[in-house]
């Protein structure tokens, strides 16, 4: 866990519909690390995840985000995806008329082409998808349906993790993937994510609850409050939050500017 950070966020300010949400976020993620971003509702967790993924609704007002040494904010979302960033959506979108399997294939082709890899042929692709779908214990029937169309909440989340497993990004961001999941589904999702842990990959887990972190054990935990990281620590911080709630962490921990480096 050395060398330059894969993702480096400095003094990031972002607003939505003119309303400031992020007010100076600092965060670095190195390859091989798993970071948890926790915080109460409205603290800016999802905004942070979406700004990194490139959602244009959010207006970046100040600060910088560098990814593998490049200015991430100047890249359109598809470019970020092809460069290895993946956002598992809190609310995965339904796309009637486009089958799930076609969508997966198009996404994988786009990423592979960009990496200079051969596109997989039909047999290889199917084999890969069927292997990965077992990992997330998802019904194969869902591959032939339109993307997320009529899926249950749990099926949508599994489908996100399936995409994650197929696309094998360098930096995976999970935006409240645990919300709305029962404990069994949560374990399945965690298993899928854990299998992707590797020295080459960075993972950011955005969550309101500690629960998910019992299964995806983070290297670092950050508390976001009112658009700033007010505290950073190891996994024990998450347990402490569970016990004491978010009330005690409101004051920004300015000693290190909110920077996540221990």
């Amino acid at each position, binding site marked *: 866990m050395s060398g330059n950070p894969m993702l480096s966020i400095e003094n990031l300010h972002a607003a939505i519909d003119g309303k400031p949400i992020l007010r100076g976020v600092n965060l670095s993620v190195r390859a091989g690390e798993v970071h948890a971003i926790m915080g109460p509702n409205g603290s800016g967790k999802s905004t942070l995840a979406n700004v990194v*993924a*490139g*959602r*244009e*609704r959010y207006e970046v007002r100040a600060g910088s985000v560098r990814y593998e040494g490049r200015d991430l904010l100047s890249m*359109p*979302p*598809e470019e*970020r*995806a*092809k460069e290895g960033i*993946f*956002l598992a*959506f809190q609310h*995965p*979108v*339904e*796309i*009637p*008329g*486009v*089958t799930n*399997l*076609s*969508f997966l*294939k*198009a*996404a994988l*082709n*786009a*990423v592979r082409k*960009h990496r200079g890899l051969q*596109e997989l042929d*039909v047999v290889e692709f199917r084999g890969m998808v069927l292997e990965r779908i077992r990992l997330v214990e998802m019904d194969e029937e869902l591959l032939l349906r*339109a993307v997320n169309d009529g899926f249950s909440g749990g099926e949508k989340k599994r489908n996100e993790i399936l*995409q994650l497993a197929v*696309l094998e990004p360098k930096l995976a961001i999970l935006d409240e993937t645990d919300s709305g999941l029962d404990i069994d589904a949560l374990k399945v999702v965690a298993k899928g994510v854990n299998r992707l842990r590797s020295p080459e990959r960075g993972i950011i887990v955005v969550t309101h609850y500690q629960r998910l972190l019992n299964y995806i054990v983070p290297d670092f935990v950050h508390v976001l409050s009112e658009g700033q990281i007010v505290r950073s620590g190891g996994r024990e911080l998450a347990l402490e939050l569970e016990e004491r709630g978010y009330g005690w962490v409101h004051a920004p921990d300015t000693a290190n500017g909110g920077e996540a480096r221990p």
Partner: protein
Amino acid sequence: MTLPAGTRDRYLAEFERVGGSRKGRPAWLRRLRDEALARFLASGFPTVKHEDWKYTGLAAIEQGEFEAAGADGGDLSPADIAGILPGEEADRHVLVFLDGRYRPELSTRRDLPSGAHLGSLTGALGGEFDGLVPYFSRSAETAFTDLNTMLMEDGVFLHLAKDVRVPEPIYLLFLMSPAARPVMAHPRNLIIAGENSGVTVVEQYAGRGDSGYFVNSVTDISAGRDATVSHFRFQEEGPSACHVAALRARQGAGSRFAAHSASFGALLSRHDVHAVLDGEGAECLLNGLYLGNGRQHVDHFTTIDHAKPSCASREYFHGILNDRARGVFRGRVIVRKDAQKTDARQTNRNLLLSKESEADSRPQLEIHADDVKCTHGATTGPLDEEKLFYMRSRGIDEASAKGLLTYAFADEVLRRFDLPVLRSALEEKLLAWIPETRRVQEFLRETGQ
């Protein structure tokens, strides 16, 4: 709303010409024509002050100086016809009407089961099917159906006796030739499907060249008890054409009627659909897609009349509008007092691809029974930003994502076209229409969807 003198004289002269050559026709038809003429002369073309025409101005038709098309029609070979018809389909009946006139040498007639009669309407009038008068007297007349009754010269007559099913689809191609002056045609079709009969009919309207012309068609369908009638309409008139069409269906108990419609062409088009569910347990599906770009104006005016109990209707219309195009949809659902256990659902969705495009959507539910399920929904707007971002966040570039979402939006309707050859042909046309078509085609090819 009286007609300008020039227009009035033109239509009167045309009426004399048509009536004059039809002296031997049945008296009842003569009377219907006279009545239609009287109504038309009194009312003229409707203006935007008329509630049913609020969003659709008719200046292009009123001032169009259309005359009857000549009989020459230009040189066309069966190969030309094959190129215009959708896809390759060996087993189909094809009746070609060029500039409003039946052209047997361009048509493909196959053997029909006994009890099925397929022919030109003028041949049927006054002959063995003279009892058709009830099917010509409709209550839902408009200025355009009146105009059609006044001036109609030909069209298709299809009659199916009890239990007769025609296995192959019947294509009716209404083709307009390029003309030096503005011409018009008023095709009139009559489909009478007897008890427990079944048939698939495709009406295709196409123009050759970009000259201005006016097509004003009327198709009346009577579906007897337990009959199944699938009607498809593909309107691809020339870019300067005016196209007005009425499809009127009356359904008996237990009958199933589907009206699929794809409106892609014409500068000004208006399609009226009027279905009366007139027997218990009848089912009706109206499924339509309309595309508009440039300055196209495309209007769909639908009425589903639940007159009897326990009938079901489904209505899905999707419109995609680009440039300065305008789409209009009116979906009227009437549930009569005795039509308990009615199940009616209606959806109209409009996708606006440009800032200058416009859609007017008006659901209109008139429910006079209390034990019914009726729903309607309408949406109008640009491509969904959330969907776009979702696709882009998976590496699919913006142009492809837009094209794909547009294609998928339209294909939701085309997927219900349960006539595979026509459906694939329309999907091809749709692809060619979509602004980012090349990328969409690549996507479909690469993913094998």
